[in-house]
């Protein structure tokens, strides 16, 4: 039942905030309260599922494959907790004083409705329900992109919407074919039916799903909507989006991974797509001068790492992918908060207009160094362990080309971080650099930095957790059993 509360709470808060239209301060107070409550619930979910227990709930008492069920295993719980953390950080960072009262009041209800969609996506045990949740996430993120209300935000949003709608159409088409060949859209039921399904139709349907999820995850060549949209978002929202939105596509890919490994072609495809994304994404980043665009191209590259690792199809690969996704969310979110601070101090989004005087103070320099070193994969930080896991998995699976692409991408990652460093933190003031602007609160940024450091020091246990989650994903017997044995009217045995 706690699954239903976790799913319903953000929705109710969002609707209440939307209807009550409180002042920015009251809205912030209520949002922070709700954010903390959601985080507590999410952490309790992680605790409840960490021993390998799968929680399940069938709506209306109809048991799958007839009803729609929610189920939470370790993978779901991890992504739910990740979003709860990022949501709270974004809520703390989004202050009326630094981001405008109108922005805050517009964004709060939408943020909670976005959380409703994301929690639904992470918790659902049914692919059609996942489609509906994807649409919910798409509509709220479309509205959040409109929050600044500038011409640029509108111009960037419409292409994003169109691309994502095409992806949705592909998702639904693939889903229709899957339903046609198996008679079910329940994930647990598909796991039983798909091995015996006609392989050609199964391949067509799964390729459609992979293309849809790759668009959400922003893999090359479906990535270009992302660098266009993130610079126009309000900065705390950009931090949240960078952390979780690409991970939604990654989560969906991971969830259908047991189906993809049935077909030898599809994991191979993911390895190639991931490797190419990793390299081209970082090369795209190197060419940028706008800091947030640079970071967005980086996300393309890092998602490539995750997708390559999961395409290996082994427990080590998928476990490495889960850990890397977690690490990348935290680091990228922190880097967007650093970008916000740099942008407003320099009164510019362009690296060429920044200089060292406005990068001032040890805290910001320290925060950037921790996040950038972690992203580049330096040893004491989380990124090192993430990359180590992915490289080891690629080595074990003898994916040499993929490994070479990832190594090249890593080198360029370091180079692109050095580019930010040399412009924003070292550059001497030139004639086109402008005076100092305002500051935003540094508390959420510091919290993210401590989380990144913590993930670096606790890398061992977290990696154990993620490989356990990967093992449970590939051998889905526990998940299936939990879903099929939810208390309900009709079970699969009575139906067939």
């Amino acid at each position, binding site marked *: 039942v706690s699954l239903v509360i976790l799913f319903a709470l953000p929705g109710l808060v969002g609707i209440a905030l939307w209807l009550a239209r409180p002042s920015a301060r009251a809205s912030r107070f209520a949002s922070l309260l709700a954010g903390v409550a959601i985080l507590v619930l999410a952490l309790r979910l992680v605790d409840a599922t960490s021993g390998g227990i799968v929680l399940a709930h069938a709506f209306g008492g109809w048991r799958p494959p007839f009803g729609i069920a929610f189920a939470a295993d370790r993978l779901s719980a991890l992504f739910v907790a990740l979003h709860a953390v990022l949501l709270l950080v974004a809520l703390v960072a989004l202050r009326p004083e630094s*981001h*405008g*009262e*109108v*922005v*805050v009041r517009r964004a709060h209800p939408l943020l909670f409705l976005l959380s409703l969609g994301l929690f639904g996506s992470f918790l659902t045990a049914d692919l*059609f329900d996942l*489609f*509906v949740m994807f*649409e919910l996430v*798409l*509509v709220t993120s*479309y509205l959040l992109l409109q929050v*600044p*209300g*500038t*011409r*640029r935000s*509108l*111009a*960037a*949003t*419409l*292409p994003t*919407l*169109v691309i994502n*709608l*095409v992806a*949705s*159409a592909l998702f*639904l*088409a693939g*889903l*229709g*074919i899957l*339903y*046609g*060949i198996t*008679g079910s859209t329940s994930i647990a039921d598909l796991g039983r039916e798909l091995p015996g399904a006609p392989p050609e139709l199964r391949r067509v349907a799964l390729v459609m799903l992979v293309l849809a999820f790759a668009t959400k995850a922003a893999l090359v060549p479906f990535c270009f909507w992302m660098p*266009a*949209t993130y610079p*126009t978002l*309000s*900065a705390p929202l950009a931090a949240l989006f960078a952390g979780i939105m690409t991970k939604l596509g990654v989560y969906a890919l991971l969830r259908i991974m047991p189906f993809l490994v049935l077909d030898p072609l599809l994991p191979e495809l993911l390895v190639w797509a991931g490797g190419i994304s990793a390299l081209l994404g970082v090369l795209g980043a190197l060419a940028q*001068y*706008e800091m947030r*665009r640079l970071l967005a191209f980086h996300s393309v590259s890092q998602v490539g790492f995750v997708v390559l690792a999961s395409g290996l199809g082994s427990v080590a690969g998928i476990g490495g992918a889960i850990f890397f996704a977690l690490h990348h969310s935290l680091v990228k979110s922190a880097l967007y908060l650093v970008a*916000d601070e740099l*942008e*407003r101090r320099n*009164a*510019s*989004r*362009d690296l060429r*207009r920044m200089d060292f005087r406005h990068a001032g103070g040890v805290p910001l320099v320290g925060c950037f160094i921790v996040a950038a070193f972690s992203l580049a994969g330096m040893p004491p930080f989380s990124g090192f362990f993430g990359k180590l896991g992915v490289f080891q998995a690629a080595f074990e699976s003898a994916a040499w080309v993929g490994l070479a692409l990832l190594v090249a991408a890593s080198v360029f990652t370091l180079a692109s971080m050095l580019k930010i460093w040399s412009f924003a933190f070292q550059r001497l003031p030139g004639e086109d650099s*402008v*005076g100092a*602007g*305002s500051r935003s609160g540094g508390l959420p940024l510091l919290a993210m930095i401590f989380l990144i450091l913590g993930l670096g020091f606790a890398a061992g246990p977290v990696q154990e957790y993620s490989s356990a989650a990967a093992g449970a994903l590939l051998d889905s017997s526990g998940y299936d059993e939990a879903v099929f044995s939810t208390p309900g009217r009709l079970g699969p045995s009575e*139906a067939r």
Partner: protein
Amino acid sequence: LLPVVALAVFLLVTVGVYLLLHRSLLRIALGLGCLGHAVHLLVLSGGRWGARAPLIKEGVRPQDVGDPVSQAFVLTAIVIALAFTLYLLVGMAAQTRRGGVPELAPPPEGDGEREADEILAELEGRETET
């Protein structure tokens, strides 16, 4: 019946993709509509005729009954598609009202030649149009 449906899906996808390749937002909205309906037909035809559902009265042969599950899927998808079409059209109207053309353009990059004050106001959310 199935070959006819397959032909309809083929035609709708063709027209949809053709329209999507234009810059005009109206054509794109129509193209997305065609693509969406192609997918809806596909899902319906993928449903199982002679379904397992027990909603049958006396004298009706099970194989004549459509699959209610895929109908429910399509119904949901149609509602969602309608809502998104509206959003797209509203976005188009907003863009036109702000002096733009109703076309999909590559989004502007960077700060351009704008003044620092202006950019700072945007970053701080002071100048939000409604």
